[in-house]
């Protein structure tokens, strides 16, 4: 069989029957070409969309959950319902120590504050943070650095500003690092500038200062606004959220069935929804692409069937000269596979061009809708294998048709 595939005569025969009906062969191939073009174009675009989602979420530890205190919804242990739940630093330590699968627990506090620099001023949100925050919610630093452990230990008055704050308080192209700004009339040294991220879990924060500094300035003591919990990759974040909440309820005298006392936002769950949407879209893409492909391959089968009808006499002659039915079938199947493959390869190449065009139009820059639309080599190979299989299967129909006629009847055909 392999010898047959590498035999020059095999391809001579394919070429002959192709060149005899150039226009028809090309029209036939259009179906498959279109199918694979759609498949590649759609899959590439889906990948581009996925990439742009990933870029949005990329700064984010996707397996994280935020928990904050609210008002209790049930009376418990002598407390009335409606009591304000106040989470504390010790809660975060206990979670870190007792719950399985925790990577970090980051406490945070937040405030809205007036900021002044020279004659410029504004009102911004400020958060007290640990350096770990940078690992949960990656800050894209333009200049300088984020808060470090030394800042925490020494309760330094340093501040990391967002681009937006910088634009309001500084002149264009002015150097901000090392400058001072006044927050609540206290001087803070600017150590870093970060790019405002498009997606925020929780309230958007304009400025970050060391957590310990924040606690001291605003007299928060042990109290925290909320905590961010990040799970290890192999653990399920939804389960971690349940465990953490149960522990917090226990520590803060909340009824175990009280669902109102603790608020939470599970990034894993939210991102899971988007991922689910993306998977759904990929499935749809494959479905549409392959359905179109099948239609195209059927068109090839159809045309070959007509061709076989026209070539009945030729096939009869070949059989009179000693071609076995197997040899006839093999030739027709090879023709079918050849047509599908050539159409498919052209489709893949033109599909690639379309992706290049999409990339050039909407694939570059910060606000690109489809980032790097592309298909993997594996997808291309899968598509080609599907084409070969479909081509073979569809080629079998005309092949059996061709040999179902007796040579004597085939010879009588005019």
């Amino acid at each position, binding site marked *: 069989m392999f010898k047959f595939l590498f035999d020059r005569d095999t391809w001579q025969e394919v070429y002959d029957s192709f060149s005899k009906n150039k226009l028809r062969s090309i029209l036939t191939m259009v179906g498959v070409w279109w199918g694979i073009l759609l498949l590649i174009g759609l899959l590439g675009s889906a990948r581009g969309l996925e990439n742009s989602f990933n870029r949005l979420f990329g700064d984010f530890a996707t397996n994280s959950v935020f928990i904050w205190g609210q008002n209790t919804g049930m009376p418990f242990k002598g407390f009335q319902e409606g009591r304000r739940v106040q989470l504390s630093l010790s809660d975060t330590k206990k979670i870190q120590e007792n719950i399985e699968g925790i990577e970090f627990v980051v406490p945070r506090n937040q405030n809205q504050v007036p900021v002044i620099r020279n004659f410029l001023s504004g009102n911004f949100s400020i958060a007290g943070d640990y350096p770990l925050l940078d690992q949960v919610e990656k800050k894209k630093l333009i200049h300088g650095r984020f808060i470090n452990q030394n800042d925490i230990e020494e309760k330094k008055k340093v501040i990391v500003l967002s681009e937006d704050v910088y634009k309001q308080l500084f002149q264009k192209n002015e150097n901000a690092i090392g400058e001072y700004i006044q927050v609540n009339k206290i001087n803070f040294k600017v150590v870093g500038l970060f790019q405002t991220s498009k997606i925020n879990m929780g309230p958007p924060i304009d400025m970050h200062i060391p957590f310990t500094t924040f606690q001291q300035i605003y007299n928060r003591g042990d109290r925290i606004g909320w905590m961010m919990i990040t799970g290890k990759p192999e653990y399920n974040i939804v389960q971690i959220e349940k465990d953490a909440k149960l522990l917090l309820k226990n520590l803060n005298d909340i009824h175990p069935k009280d669902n109102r006392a603790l608020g939470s936002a599970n990034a894993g769950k939210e991102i899971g929804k988007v991922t689910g949407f993306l998977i759904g879209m990929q499935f749809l893409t494959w479905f549409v692409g392959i359905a179109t492909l099948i239609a195209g391959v059927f068109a090839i089968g159809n045309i070959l069937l007509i061709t076989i009808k026209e070539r009945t006499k030729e096939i009869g002659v070949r059989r*009179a000269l*000693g071609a076995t039915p197997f040899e006839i079938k093999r030739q027709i199947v090879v023709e079918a596979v050849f047509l599908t493959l050539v159409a498919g390869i052209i489709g893949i190449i033109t599909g690639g061009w379309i992706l290049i065009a999409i990339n050039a139009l909407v694939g570059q820059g910060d606000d690109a809708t489809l980032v790097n639309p592309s298909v993997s080599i594996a997808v291309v190979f899968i598509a080609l294998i599907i084409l070969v299989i479909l081509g073979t299967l569809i080629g079998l129909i005309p092949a059996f048709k061709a040999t179902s006629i007796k040579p004597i009847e085939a*010879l009588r055909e005019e």
Partner: protein
Amino acid sequence: MLKINQLHKSYPIGDSSLHVLKGIDLEVEKGEMVAIMGSSGSGKSTLLNIIGMLDEADSGDYILDELPIKDLTEKKAAVYRNKFLGFIFQSFNLINYKNALENVALPLYYQGMKRKERQEKALFHLEKVGLADWAQHLPKELSGGQNQRVAIARALAANPKLLLADEPTGALDTKTSHEIMAFIQQLNDEGKTILMVTHEEDIASMCKRVVRLRDGVIMEDKKVEQVRAEQYV
């Protein structure tokens, strides 16, 4: 060479059946040149098709060169046809998108012969029919007589034991017919066994033996004095 014994063949037509061959007995020796004659419907083509293994008899024996031809699968029939038989058709039946050389080489291709060897051999046979200079021409670029000579070269290519010709001159004018017949006679002189179906008396008279069929039985089977075709050319 060829031995046929009580051969019967009928074709179903609707509910009834048409009995085409009603017990044919025929024996052909090596080197003979036999014309099978008869009006249309006499069964002469059916007999040739059965001998050519393109069709199968309902009953009776057919022995070709001591090999009983019976219960053939399509594959086996194809191999036997390729090995033992050469076909010459009325309408030449060349493949129109292949040139003369490729047409002649086709039976050799199905023998699995290597391309180079095949082309050499095909060219040798084309030379023999006097068309070596036309090897690269397509059938449509050749005259009817030339096409039939290409077809004869093709029939000879696999060096068959038996040449079967179905009205080989049916599509040709008288002069060309005589040329072709002269050539077939020459092949017979060289020792080829030839069996041809014809309804033309003058063509039949150029064979060495004439078998007349009517309504599925042999009416007459006699040796004739061969008329040489060269004298008309």
